[in-house]
């Protein structure tokens, strides 16, 4: 019995909405915009945080990265200044000491020197990274062709190098890189392998002189070769002035056994290093920490987006309530007639509630459709990653339905509480 009545009420609700098509569509707009902005914003936020997390994950979540940084008081009066030479940063001995940290699997030293790399007429500004053969295993890098550096290269200070795929493309547009040598400063290095570019933060120039250059222009040479060919003291000439820096190692990456080891090792590393570095000439970067921070950022980001979306849905809900209140006034007489002919209060409530719920659910459905299309368009036109999650759709849709009920309840009650006699007399 109730089923027929309910179906009848739903039909009635849809019918009276169709009677005022423009009004219904305008009322729905608030919900449509609310829902589609929730989904689109969350999709963009999700995509951005995904990108950030991927970047951080490539640093290796088991790694702790220690960078040499130029100390703040480098103006020339400090004890370390001999003539015009600045002496700072990590040393080979630091590398050896860090090996003793419990849980440390491998300690990877790196010298990172900015130099132009030439082949034939092509000259590309690069980071020349002097490092050890197990580099790919620590930072997670794939050898595409040939091989990476080996123990023999290190032992014999061989003039060999491995280039990233992007750099190979730029230096050797027509030739096979593996059969040629590149010139770095005044020496030639035979190309023995190509590694896949990762384009991640780990190759970002530390001192940041050349912003805007591609990040994947890396050349890897044996650490020993780097030491022999470039020396410990790096000279820089800029606008007629000299500067010389003595830096043994630019970076040490410590690979830990597992994520739990990372957390305990970070303070220990600082403790070990601080004993030999009285100035603040190094920094540690813990990707795991960054990952956690990124997740925390994402949470607060989502909260901000969520509250913006909630506000827009609230506004949409108020719009619905406003229209429904107007509709109740407009249809006072109809309500009176229905009450006189046997409608109970709850029949009237259902009738008006169905209308608001149809409005908000209908708006929600359209909003979901638009909200799914927008991130797709953003990805197509800007190349940004966007991720539409099922939970954002469920959230938006659920809220829109709830808004319909919450904001429909008051007008519906107002309609049901009308005195039938008064309502019948209403003009």
């Amino acid at each position, binding site marked *: *019995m*109730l089923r*027929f*009545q309910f179906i*009848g*009420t739903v039909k*009635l609700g849809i*019918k*009276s909405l169709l*009677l005022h098509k423009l009004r219904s569509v305008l009322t729905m707009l608030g919900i449509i915009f609310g829902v589609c902005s929730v989904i689109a914003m969350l999709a963009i936020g999700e995509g951005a945080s995904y990108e950030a997390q991927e970047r951080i994950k490539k640093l290796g979540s088991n790694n702790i990265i220690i960078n040499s940084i130029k100390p703040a008081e480098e103006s020339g009066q400090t004890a370390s200044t001999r003539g015009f030479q600045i002496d700072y940063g990590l040393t080979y001995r630091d590398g050896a000491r860090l090996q003793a940290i419990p849980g440390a699997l491998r300690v990877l030293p790196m010298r990172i020197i900015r130099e132009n790399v030439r082949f034939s007429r092509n000259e590309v500004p690069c980071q020349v990274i002097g490092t050890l053969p197990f580099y790919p295993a620590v930072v997670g890098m794939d050898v595409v062709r040939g091989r990476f550096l080996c123990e023999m290269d290190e032992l014999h200070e061989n003039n060999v190098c491995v280039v990233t795929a992007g750099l190979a493309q730029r230096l050797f547009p027509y030739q096979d890189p593996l059969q040629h040598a590149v010139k770095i400063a005044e020496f030639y290095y035979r190309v023995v392998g190509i590694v896949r570019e990762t384009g991640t933060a780990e190759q970002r120039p530390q001192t940041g002189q050349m912003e805007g250059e591609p990040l994947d222009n890396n050349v890897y040479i044996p650490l020993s070769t780097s030491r022999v060919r470039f020396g410990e003291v790096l000279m820089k000439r800029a606008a007629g002035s000299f500067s010389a820096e003595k830096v043994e190692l630019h970076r040490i990456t410590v690979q830990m056994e597992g994520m739990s080891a990372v957390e305990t090792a970070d303070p220990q590393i600082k403790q070990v290093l601080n004993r030999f570095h009285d100035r603040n000439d190094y920094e540690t970067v813990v990707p795991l920490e960054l990952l956690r921070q990124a997740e925390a950022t994402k949470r607060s980001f989502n909260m901000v987006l969520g509250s913006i979306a909630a506000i827009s849905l609230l506004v949409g809900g108020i719009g619905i309530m406003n229209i429904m209140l107007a509709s109740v006034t407009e249809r006072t*007489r*109809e309500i*009176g*007639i*229905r*009450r*006189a*002919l*046997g*409608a*109970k*209060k*709850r*029949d009237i409530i259902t009738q008006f509630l169905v209308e608001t719920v149809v409005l908000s659910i209908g708006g929600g459905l359209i909003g979901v459709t638009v909200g799914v299309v927008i991130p797709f368009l953003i990805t197509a036109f800007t190349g940004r990653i966007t991720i539409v999650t099922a939970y954002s759709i469920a959230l938006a849709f659920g809220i829109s339905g709830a808004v319909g009920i919450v904001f429909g309840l008051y007008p519906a009650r107002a309609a049901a509480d009308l005195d*039938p*006699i008064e309502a*019948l007399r209403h003009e």
Partner: protein
Amino acid sequence: MTASALQPNAMIQTVGLEKTYVLGAENIVRALRGVDLAVTQGSYVAIMGPSGSGKSTMLNLLGCLDRPSGGSYFLGAEDVSQMDDDALSEVRGRRIGFIFQSYNLIAQLTVLENIQVPLVYQGVDLRDYEERCQELARLVGLDDRLDHRPNQLSGGQQQRVAVARSLVNDPLIILADEPTGNLDSKTGREVLDLIDRLNRGGKTIVLVTHDDHVAERAHRVIHMKDGRIDREVVNRPVPETPEATFHHE
């Protein structure tokens, strides 16, 4: 008063019916001051009286649109004076047919749908009642206009739709509030003829009017004044119908 004290074949019986409106601390309006009225099965009663005499209040109470402040009201065998809102809605939907002065059709519904409105709240499958609705439309001479909207009909036609609607639930009584008030005399006569026919068919009818010519058609005319029954005129006797005692067994 108990049910045993009721008149045996009364379809409507009020005992000391009172209605008081409290409009403010000092402003109390006693619209009805104890009305005893019995309407027997199959009778046709007209209620007349000047404005303010309480006849509208009487009709609202008889129609279960309002609750009395005192006294009791028996509709059929049920005491409806103490019922709650839901129960009163139920009674209105099942036992009472309304005909209003201003027709009170729902503008966005068709003739057929308007006739069906009382059924919607009975929770029945409307498809089972399609034939009955068409039959009622034929009775009031509108079976060719089932898909029309009220604004496509004349006043007389609209009032005939309202008559059909009042019958759809097979009610115990039909309450008509100035049914011809908005109609010209010719269409008014047509509607009254229709109501006469319903009464001859056994329907109990209570009609409120100003018009002596309308009241002439009733078996009894109740004149009200100052919230009381002033006098009662019997035009002609109520014909005995075989169903007369049936409802009270």
